[in-house]
């Protein structure tokens, strides 16, 4: 039995989507950090113009899977990916593909706000300049800041350093920076974990607006957040049976189905809060 088939059978209900509705198709067999098997056998399609939520307990590999989608993990020398991530018909892990290229199309917002040591304006314009954008820079910067719900707070101090903002503002600045170049897919790795409830609500509203134009994959620790914003939810868990701590996809489906009518026992226990 090959590994992909094995992955399909180990999922309680293999989630299948019409290929023409998926923007990315992650079929991973194994992710290693050195000798450590971090994630195994997970098939995770990312749907076009939808928000795909990744939930699961700590160490289940949901962030690792997300970061594999734009080859961020390649920064870690001991990282090794087996399987494929198809994006517009092309496996992004193909030897001929430059990870830098992948990241131009698939943007990312990180768990911790990480603005650059430069002005608010330059932070947002960074990707535009990187892509040698020739149009009206001011207009683009304003649009990105507006869509990140930050414009009114910073419009009078665009020259100030991005690091002078509060934590929540910094995170929205990072979102503005990520959406300014209008990437095709936006990966968000627990974007609200450093935010207070008000800023969290703003970012969630922003995500719902973003999916009009982008496809979003969202890792969240917060199950309520998944029910509020995700169209599709993937539940990961961690397998400690063979002495390791290997994450894998347990169940994936429409958010309402995963939370209200989970197929797998593990999902049932997790979404009802029996363990976390």
């Amino acid at each position, binding site marked *: 039995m090959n590994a992909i088939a094995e992955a399909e059978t180990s999922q309680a209900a293999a989630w299948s989507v019409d290929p023409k509705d998926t923007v990315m198709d992650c079929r991973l067999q194994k992710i290693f950090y050195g000798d450590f098997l971090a994630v195994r056998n997970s098939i995770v399609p990312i749907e076009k113009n939808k928000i795909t939520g990744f939930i699961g307990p700590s160490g289940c590999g949901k962030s690792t899977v997300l970061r594999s989608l*734009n080859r*961020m993990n390649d*920064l870690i*020398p001991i990282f090794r990916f087996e399987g494929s991530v198809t994006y517009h018909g092309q496996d992004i892990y193909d030897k001929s593909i430059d990870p*830098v*290229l*992948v*990241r*131009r199309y698939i*943007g*990312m917002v*990180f768990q*911790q706000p*990480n*603005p*650059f*040591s*430069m002005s608010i304006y330059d932070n947002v314009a*960074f*990707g535009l300049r*990187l892509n040698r954008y020739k149009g009206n820079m001011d207009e683009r910067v304003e649009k990105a800041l507006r869509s990140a719900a930050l414009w009114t707070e910073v419009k009078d101090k665009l020259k*100030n*350093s*991005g*690091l*002078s903002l509060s934590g929540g503002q910094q995170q929205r600045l*990072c979102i503005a*920076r*990520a959406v300014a*170049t209008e990437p095709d897919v936006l990966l968000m790795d627990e974007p609200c974990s450093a935010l207070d409830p008000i800023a969290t609500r703003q970012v969630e509203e922003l995500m719902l607006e973003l999916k009009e134009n982008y496809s979003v994959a969202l890792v969240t620790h917060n199950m309520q957040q998944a029910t509020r914003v995700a169209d599709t939810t993937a539940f990961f868990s961690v397998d400690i049976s063979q002495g390791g701590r290997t994450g894998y996809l347990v169940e994936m489906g429409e958010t309402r189905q995963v939370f209200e009518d989970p197929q797998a026992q593990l999902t049932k226990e997790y979404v009802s809060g029996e363990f976390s």
Partner: protein
Amino acid sequence: MASNPFAHVVTKVSGPPSAVDYGADKLLRGVVWGAAAVILLLVAYIVFELGRQAFPAMLEFGPEFIYSTTWDVQAKQFGILPEIWGTLYSSLLALLLGGILGVAIAIFLTQDFLDHRVSNVFRTIVEMLAAIPSVVYGLWGIYVLIPLIRPGANWLHDTLGWFPFFGTSLSGPGMAPAALVLAVMILPTVAAISVDAFKRVPYKVKEAAYGMGTTRWEAILKVMLPSASSGILAALVLGFGRALGETMALAMLIGNSNQISLSLFAPANTLASLLASSFPEAGPIEVQALMYAAIALLAITLLVNIFGLWIMKAATRKFEGR
């Protein structure tokens, strides 16, 4: 000892700090305050003593001392403009060379070009440059560097002699060998402090850069350098300060000649080198003049440091908003 109004509270383990704890606390505070006071007093005393000994010369020669160019003991004429020029010129050249090289090495050592262990070994080797005594650098300059660069220098003079930097030939000691050795001497300072500056840039910033789809070059140039800029500037200021005050190697290599020339191959002089080479045989009046020159060197170093601090503050404000 502080009184304890909670002494009646019954606890199993928690209790008030003992008299010994309070005593140690007081002692530590005294020691660190004392150490700080000693440093301040020492600096004040050095400045005072220099000023006291230079005072007669300051009265006699006045500001002319700074901008006149003759140092003639017999005629009792003392001016240090060539030495001020030589000090600044040699240090700026060294800063340019050593600065670029030092920051480049720091980038090479911190931006994943090398395996961690290899990069640590490399860094240790660079830092070992700082352990080589100044006089050894001087000897190396005389016996290795000058013969090595002389053919090239003279070729430059012969073919591009109209260019002010190559206006004279290199006969032996001169500005070029002095500046080259000085650049090597400040290299470990600049490299080590820049390495720390790059290492202080949080990993998440690097992630953000690559996450935007930067190539390595773009990530380093557009994100890592601005993020580390205040630390790199500190490295350059410290390196420049070290170059200004460097004495022995320069006294051996610069030629100790009182002249102002743009030519890289002409002999020149620096303040520190003037002090070192003139003191041993100086009479009372010359000693006073030398003390005056020492104050000038001190003032230059101080101004450079203040200027450097100001630039660092400006950079921190610009890039980090603090």
